[in-house]
Structure formats: C-alpha cells, structure tokens
C-alpha cells in the first residue's frame, strides 16, 4: 500500500513538472516505424517576447483581456515611424506589420514571456556574462559598419534566431518542416534554408575541437517526447551572449492535434547563473516552406557598408 502511494506521488509529480494534466493526456499518432509522429509544417510565430517586459515584472500570466491589449499595442508599435539616423538603424526600422509575420497573438498559455524558468522570466546572467555582452555592445557602437563582420549574423545571412538552436520566432518566416525516419529526425528551417539533421542512434558528439554554427545535435525518445542535446557550438553563434561551451537540451512533444510544444533549457555557467528554460507552443501551418535565398539577394551589406564609407568621406570633406 505504501509502495503504491509512493508511485502515485511520483507519477503525479512527473506530470506536474512536465506539462499540465490536460495536455499530458494527448496521445500522438505514430509513424509506420513506431515513433510518435511530429511531422508536418509548424510555426513558432508569436508576439510573446523571450524575456518578460519590465512593465510586467510581477506578472507571469496575462488575463485574456490583458493579452488582447498587449497584442493590439504590439502591432501598433510595429507600424509606428521608426526611421533611424544611420544606415543600420534605418534598415532595422524599415519594416512594419505588412512585413512582419510574428502572428497576431501571444502564446496560448498567456505567459508574459517565453521563458518559464526562472520565475521572473529573465535570462539569469552572471556578472561576467553581462560584462561580455556590454563590451560587445560597446564595440558595436564604436564599429557599426567597418566591415561585414561588424553586422548582425542575420544581416550577413549566416544564422537567424529561427534556426538557433534554440529555435526562436523571428520577425517573419518562422516556419519549420519536420521529417522522420527510424534513424534521424530532420528539421528544415525556412530561414535561411538551414537543415538540422538529428541522429537517433546514440552516437557520440563530434570531437570537442569541431565547432559548428548550429552546434552538433543528438536525439533520443523519452516516451512521446523527442529529446535533443546540442553541444559543439562555435563562439561565433553566441546565442544571447553564451560561450561556445553552451549546452542545449530541447524537448519536442505533441500536446494536442495542432500543437507541438517546444521546451528548451540552456546551460552555460560562464554566462548564466543557472540553467534557464523556455516553452513555445508551435502550431500547425498549412505550408509550404519557401526557399529563402538570403545571401543571394543580399543588397543590405553593400548598402550599409557603402553608406558608412560615403558618410565618412562626407565628414572628412568638411561637409
């Protein structure tokens, strides 16, 4: 009797820690080879920010009315005149709601941030992590456009936050297609035609000297959840200021017919005081995934760099 009670408590605790009892009941269909079927086109577009906005410091969840007001305000903000004083900020401000595709809704959980741990919805930076971030920001202010390496990875068509990993919603095209075989799960990321191919055969990670923009991912199934561990990042990816030693755990779970819940935990003791976690309900999309040939159409880099050189020449000419 005591044993049975103990089991009930353990199972109950596991359910609470994983997801709400309502969604835990969803039983996903299976592929012909017996894996939970995560396949399809999914989007993680949302108006909910990764970190909780300062104005909502004590509020972990919106009421439905508050969510509606936040959604309206977020869309209006995207449409305000945001012209900048230099080439880079002018480019960043050149988009409005007609371009953006962050959706029109906050996440269905009504959380005020995608971060679910820690409780304040903020990335728990170490002092050293903050110092590195502010040094990088200082350098960027002093050298906004000396050469292509000064520009954002997305502007350079090297890496978008949509690919990550972790995979965060971007300003537009936050779309993914998942493919499954007995040996691999593949995620085609619309931005910028990156493909994450995740082996499921328990092989070791790449040797530690081999570093990749998207890191090196290995997956396995835990019940109906695909768990992916990624290491071997390059320092150049610097996700939210993390070092190349960042370790990422992602969990993909079908939680209802139209939702793939994407949970992730980021660890990097040099940058974060403790591991932190976020949860994004990805929703079904009709597709298709388009080709986003980012680099092939990159007129921004010559525009930004050429503009900066023209400004310097004008300043030198005593204009």
């Amino acid at each position, binding site marked *: 009797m005591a044993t049975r009670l103990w089991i009930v408590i353990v199972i109950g605790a596991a359910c609470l820690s994983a997801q709400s009892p309502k969604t835990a009941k969803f039983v996903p269909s299976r592929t012909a080879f017996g894996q939970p079927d995560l396949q399809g086109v999914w989007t993680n577009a949302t108006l909910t920010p990764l970190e909780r906005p300062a104005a909502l410091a004590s509020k972990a969840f919106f009421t439905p009315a508050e969510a509606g007001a936040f959604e309206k305000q977020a869309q209006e903000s995207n449409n305000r005149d945001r012209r900048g004083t230099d080439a880079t900020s002018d480019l960043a401000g050149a988009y409005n709601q007609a371009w953006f595709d962050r959706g029109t809704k906050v996440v269905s959980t009504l959380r005020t941030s995608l971060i679910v741990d820690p409780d304040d919805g903020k990335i728990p930076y170490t002092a050293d992590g903050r110092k590195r971030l502010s040094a990088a920001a200082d350098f960027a202010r002093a050298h906004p*456009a000396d050469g292509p390496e000064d520009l954002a990875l997305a502007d350079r068509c090297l890496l978008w936050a949509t690919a990550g990993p972790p995979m965060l919603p971007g300003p537009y095209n936050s779309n993914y297609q998942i*493919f499954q*075989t007995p040996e691999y799960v593949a995620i*085609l990321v619309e931005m910028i035609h990156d493909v994450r191919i995740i082996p499921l*055969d328990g092989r070791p990670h790449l040797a530690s000297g*081999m570093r*990749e923009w998207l890191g090196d991912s290995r997956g396995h199934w835990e019940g109906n959840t695909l768990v992916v561990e990624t290491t071997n990042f390059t320092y150049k990816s610097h996700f939210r200021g993390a070092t190349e030693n960042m370790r990422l755990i992602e969990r993909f779970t079908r939680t209802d017919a139209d939702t793939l819940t994407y949970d992730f935990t980021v660890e990097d003791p040099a940058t974060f005081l403790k591991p932190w976690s976020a949860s994004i309900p990805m929703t079904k999309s009709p597709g298709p995934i388009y080709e986003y040939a980012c680099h*092939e159409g990159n007129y921004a880099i010559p525009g930004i760099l050429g503009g*900066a050189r023209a400004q310097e020449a004008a300043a030198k000419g005593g204009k």
Partner: protein
Amino acid sequence: MIAVAAAAGVLSLAAPPVAAQTTIARSARTADGKPNLNGIWQVLTEANWDLQGHAAAAGPIIQLGAIGAMPPGLGVVEGEEIPYKPEAVAKRKANFADRLKLDPEVKCYLPGVPRATYMPFPFQIVQTPQFILISYEYASAARTIYMKDPGPAPVDSWMGQSVGHWDGDTLVVDVTGFNDQSWFDRAGDYHSDALHVVERYTPHGPDSLMYEATIEDKNVFTKPWKISMPVYRRLEKNVQLMEFKCVEFVEELMYGEYRKKVAK
C-alpha cells in the same frame, strides 16, 4: 549486488539507452515498401568542373598551382556534346572566360539542380512517404521533393520545385520553377528560367545509386539532353553532414571593397 544495481541506475540516467547504441540494420526498403534511399551520398566525378569530357588544364588562379588545376574527366553527357543553340554557345564561352566573376559557386550561391548532386560535397536523403528531403552540405542547400503534386511552383527559385513519384524502384523527380541564375558546372554551362529537369534515382546495390538527369530548356538547347553518373554511399563510421556555410568565406571577396580603410 545492490551497489551494482544502483550504479547501473545512475549510469542509465547519464548515458543514452543501451538499445540506441546498437547499429540499426539498414533495410533495403522503408516501412511503406519503397526502396530505402535514406543515407549520406556523394558522387565521384569531375562533372562539377565540366559536364563534358575534358583533359586536365591549369586553373584560373595562378597562385593555387596544382591545387586549383582542373582534373581530367571522361564526361557525363550522353552523346558527349551538350546541344546548345548556336546563339547560346557564345554565352557559354563568355561565361567560361569570366568564370571567376560569374560562376555562382564562387559566391557561395545556391547550386541549383542537378548541380547540387555532383558538387564535391556529400548530401543526405531523408525519405518519408509524403516528402523526401535532400540536405546538401554545400552552402546548407536543401530541397523538399513533394510526393503529391502541389500544382505549379508558386515562385521561381534557385533549387526549383521538386515533385516525385515512384516508377518501379526508381524515384523520378520532376523539377520546375527555376530562376535563371544557377550554372551546371564551373565551365560556364548554363540555362534559362525555362529549365525543366527530370531526375531518376535508381538503387544499384546496397551502397550505390544510379543518377540520371534529363535537361530541357527551349531557350538554350536544341533538344533535351541527359547526364548520368553513379552516386555512392558514404560508409565512414558515424558519418554526418558537416556545415559548409561558405557565405562567411566569400564576404571579403564580395564586400571587401566597402571595408573601412585603416589609417596608416
């Protein structure tokens, strides 16, 4: 005994499940009974230098010496010659003469089809009943083959729109919706946006495929023509596609002229 069990319990938390570490037997057929094309593949030809037969020659960059020289190739074009329209031959020649500036590969642009297949990089096929993903190591290029025709391509693209079906044990892929930007090789062989490619992937033993592509473009060629070559499975232990995000490697070439000059 208890200590051993406890230690094993701790280990099982830390390490992946033991079953996952055994090699999954490679089946000749997928669960839906189709030939199993899953795997990491690569061609072994000099087709990317020139689809047509060619003797070895010096490369376009003197400093690269033997590294940059063109290896000889027997050619992969059926009937040896690509049937260019007379007026198209001149453009092919001009492309070759100015290849350092014009070859999309120099700029790390998407390779198009069929060039993606015979770039000197591996590619991975991820095969499902409804969609077959081909992920190419070169430039992180990718394409999805729709096994159900979604209708005309919504927009022109570098990699085109691929629609597949099975002809016996051969995967036949009809590719349309191309732009006119990609080339077929480093020799300047090119096409227009009227390009139509029909590929055939046929299993040829457990570790090779025969690849054929029929190329049609009424603006550039007098008739359809065909290339063929074997594709081999990469058999190294734990082989995986690596990143070749070459955009970073061409920034100085493409944007160096806009770099801020450092005062001397």
